[in-house]
């Protein structure tokens, strides 16, 4: 289906620690559709992070099939998976993980350089920051930014290459509610205005409240998958 970005079918993922096998995912089925603002929730150890790893082409399933944009990830080489991440996926991490020796602008620009964008990469990076109302932060290094600002720059970096799918792992975990709200507004703006799809793993009720779809995992399986109206859907707040 053209609108289906991710198709995970009967996905199992085992981890081996010495003689102990941990079944992180136990036959999981999940589709992610274009435009989803999807929260994956569940207790610790339910497999949220493992699922994001698999969708993000950072890891491969033990069995089953994970297709992203129609491509079976298990058939892709390490290099092609890196290409997929670079060109079509964006990542946002809990601890921001900006490159500390680069400015905010350079962090965004760096992804474009990796993509091989030439002279215009600085203008494009600046445009991304401006678009997300972060233009005035461009010259600052990460240690000169607050946590909320760092996470917003991290989102800017994640979307600089205009990925179709953005994966965010506990993006609001280190933020206060005000900053978390600003971040979620920014992400929703990106979904609405730039046709991006977001998948979050989270424990944060605020994130869930913004989600258009909530998938609950337990013991490596999907136990519920509900479409919902975001409580914030009608808010007038925008990043502009």
């Amino acid at each position, binding site marked *: 289906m053209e609108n289906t970005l991710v198709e995970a079918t009967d996905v199992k993922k085992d981890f081996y620690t010495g003689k102990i096998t941990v079944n992180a995912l136990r036959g999981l089925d999940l589709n992610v559709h274009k435009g989803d603002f999807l929260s994956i929730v569940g207790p610790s150890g339910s497999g*949220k992070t493992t699922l994001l790893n698999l969708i993000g082409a950072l890891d491969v399933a033990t069995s089953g099939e994970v297709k992203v944009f129609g491509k079976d990830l298990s058939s892709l080489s390490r290099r092609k998976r890196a290409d997929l991440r670079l060109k079509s996926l964006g990542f946002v991490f809990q*601890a921001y993980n900006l490159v500390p020796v680069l400015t905010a602008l350079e962090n965004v620009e760096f992804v474009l*350089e990796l993509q091989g964008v030439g002279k215009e990469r600085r203008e494009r990076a600046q445009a991304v920051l401006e678009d997300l109302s972060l233009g005035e932060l461009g010259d600052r290094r990460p240690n000169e930014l607050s946590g909320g600002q760092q996470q917003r720059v991290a989102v800017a970096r994640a979307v600089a290459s205009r990925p179709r799918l953005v994966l965010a792992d506990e993006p609001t975990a280190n933020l206060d509610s005000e900053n978390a709200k600003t971040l979620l507004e920014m992400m929703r703006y990106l979904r609405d205005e730039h046709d991006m799809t977001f998948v979050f793993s989270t424990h944060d009720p605020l994130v869930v409240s913004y989600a258009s779809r909530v998938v609950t995992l337990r013991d490596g399986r999907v136990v519920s998958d509900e479409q919902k109206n975001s409580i914030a859907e009608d808010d007038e707040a925008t990043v502009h």
Partner: protein
Amino acid sequence: MRVSLIMKFAVRTLGRSKRRTLLSAIGIGVGCAVALFITAFMRSGTEMRIQAIADSGFGHLRIAPSGWMKSRENKLRLSDWHAELQAARSMDGVRVAAPHARTTALLAFGTRVTGVEMLGVDPPAEEKLNRLIGAVQEGRYLRPGDRDVTVIGNAIAERLEVELEDDLFLTVVCEDGNMEYAMLRIVGIVNTGSRDIDASICHVALGDLERLTGLHGAGEITITLEDPSKIDQMAAQLSDQIGGRNEVLTWREIQPGQGADSASDKAFMNLFIGIVGVVVILGIASAQLTAILERKREFAVLMALGMKGFQIVRLVLLEAVALGLLGAAAGLALVTPLLYYTDTKGIDFGSALGGDMAVSGVLFDFVMYTQMGLWMIPYALSVALISTLIAALYPAWFAMKTDPTSALSLREA
């Protein structure tokens, strides 16, 4: 021109842990400085050795009779030595070409006798060639037209208990096997400071030696060059010039012991530089690996962003290059004052060695110099960059092999 971000990333990374960077740069710098000093010493040492050999009368090159290399027989004489001498003197780059002939002889005065290797010379050419005869302590050196006179070393004079103007009784074996006798008046006594060398100097005019031995002509033409760095090139040219009548030898063949010493010195110094290099490489590799281990999460993030393995390797190697440049600068800063001092003032080994520095008839200076020059910059850069790049290979491979899921596991701990 805009500097690539990966370059900025690499350079700025050095500023993250200034103490580690400083210590690493000093480590590389010390290794670099040691290599520079040894090389500067070795370059100068080789030059000084060649010059000492040349100045001691052995020259840079020698035209010798065919077969001399094998037999080292003093009775052999050059074919058409006048032509060879002319050929050598007409070549550009030849400073002096002096004909020599040698024979063994017995010198006697009263009841005292000593054996010597007597050298027949062309006095004006010899004065330009041989630094040792500048050390005439008493009397004078030989002059054109001198006959039945000799200049001897101080040690011979002491052994025979002779003075200037004494007449020595000389015995030599002629070409036909008969003994030939002559009286030689001492016109000069040389004191080089080396007892070994002073016990070997006995110069006479080439004509006297021809007459006494019955062997006509020169047994060798000793040549010094304007530019000793062109010895091999000039040897080939001279060889072409004289055809196959005689053979052209370099100082290494004339003084094989010195050649071997020079080669073994070089090998030892290179081994020492190699050991220093290995120690530096291991030290840097250890520091780099620690830095990489600390940055595993960062590499995982970069991989998640789409950075490929070769780009990670490039980043780590660029960091190594930046560190290498710092190390080279540190090495140059450390060694330049020392090299400047040793280049201009030298190191005086006189008191350490005592006595003299004569080996196989070659008189060396007590003061050894190093050789500074622009060569130090590319040399320091090469040493520092090569060692840091080698040291960074394993850390780079390690960084490339980072498993993003285990290093990052997306969820932060």
